[in-house]
């Protein structure tokens, strides 16, 4: 009874959504999937805690959902595409959630993206043939 290790475990700052995480976070993700229905969203919005109980979330899972603690939800096996369905209740986008997971502001996160993209047009020119490059 052991979860196998993977070569991607060594990628820093990264939660690869594998069987172990999916198994662990199944109820969180199942609850989030239910938010595809407007009726369920309304029920959750009325009483987040009660809705978590309906999906038998554990106390730490429930606390993280209600608080909108996406770093913690990730550790608990939440998948980002399902967490996006929870984030909206906290007025957050995926980008806001990403910033929180990095302990920076959304503005700083946007700057990170821009910094990582710097100089791309010069690179397109060097390769050649790119539209508007």
């Amino acid at each position, binding site marked *: 009874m052991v979860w196998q290790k*993977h*070569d*991607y475990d060594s*990628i*820093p*700052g*990264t*939660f*690869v*959504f*594998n*069987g172990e995480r*999916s198994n662990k976070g*199944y109820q969180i*993700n*199942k609850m*989030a*999937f239910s*938010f*595809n*229905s*407007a009726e369920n*969203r309304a029920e959750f919005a009325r009483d987040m805690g009660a809705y978590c109980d309906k999906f038998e979330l554990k106390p730490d899972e429930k606390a993280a959902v209600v608080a909108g603690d996406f770093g913690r939800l*990730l550790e608990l096996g939440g*998948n*980002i*595409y*399902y967490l*996006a*369905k929870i*984030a*909206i209740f906290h007025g957050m986008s*995926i*980008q806001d*959630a*990403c*910033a929180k*997971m*990095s*302990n920076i502001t959304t503005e700083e*996160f946007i700057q*990170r*993206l*821009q910094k*990582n*993209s710097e*100089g*791309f047009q010069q*690179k*397109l020119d060097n*390769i050649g*043939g*790119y*539209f*508007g*490059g």
Partner: protein
Amino acid sequence: MAKIIGGISSSHIPAIGKAIANKLQNDPYWKRFFDGYEPVREWLQANKPDLAIVVYNDHGLNFFLDTVPTFAIGAASTYQTADEGWGLKTQGSVAGDAQLSWHIIESLVENEFDMTICQEMLVDHGFVVPMTLLWGEENEWPIKAIPLAVNTVQHPMPSAQRCYRLGQALGKAIASYPEDMKIVLIGTGGMSHQLQGQRAGIINVDFDLECMEKIIHDPEWLTRISNTEIMSKAGTEGIETIMWMVMRGALGEKVNPLHKHYHAPISNTGAGVLLLEPSSDN
């Protein structure tokens, strides 16, 4: 006979759908990105394909984690969009082609690709955003489509090599369909991005551009790269670029690149566009 006339790659991120809904195409942030699609739209209008096979991943609309098909294909006469739960605009439906779907399914299974067969299939932003980018925001798109979903959500995922081989088998299936029709393949997703953990925010321009060039000229290159290596270079969600390999595999050994475009960042990603035509040398 059915003929593949082209292959297109495109981002499918929801932020693009929101920008279109809010008519931000000329906004300074978006203009260069949207301008990069104009030559593709012109080519589509000039060449008028009858059907698009859209290779995308479902993000928790049609499939939940209870049942995760590695490769799933639509076999319906129509595909509906639906509420994804987090505020994306729901569009209408797109017509399918059940006869062609079943022909493809029979051919793929015979060639050892054991597809999950979907006679009902809701299509999410992974499918909708590229359709909207290429044919506009419509309640009924002016082209038929077949959705082909690749699992890029739950590991283990298929390798780039497996995706490429699926594309090759798909190309073979299409070439043996007797109806005269023009088909385009659309490989969606990517490029580099990571939406979780302290490493969120990765954009790797060098790797994205290397992928684009190799996918055009030497697609076997990507078949030799493991999913772990792709994730370490391009981010966990950057793995989606493997779906371009399905499109590329279907086009045959050689292609003529008619258009290539790249912009970054777009929302949290590097965004690449390719328009490829199968070479007459194939």
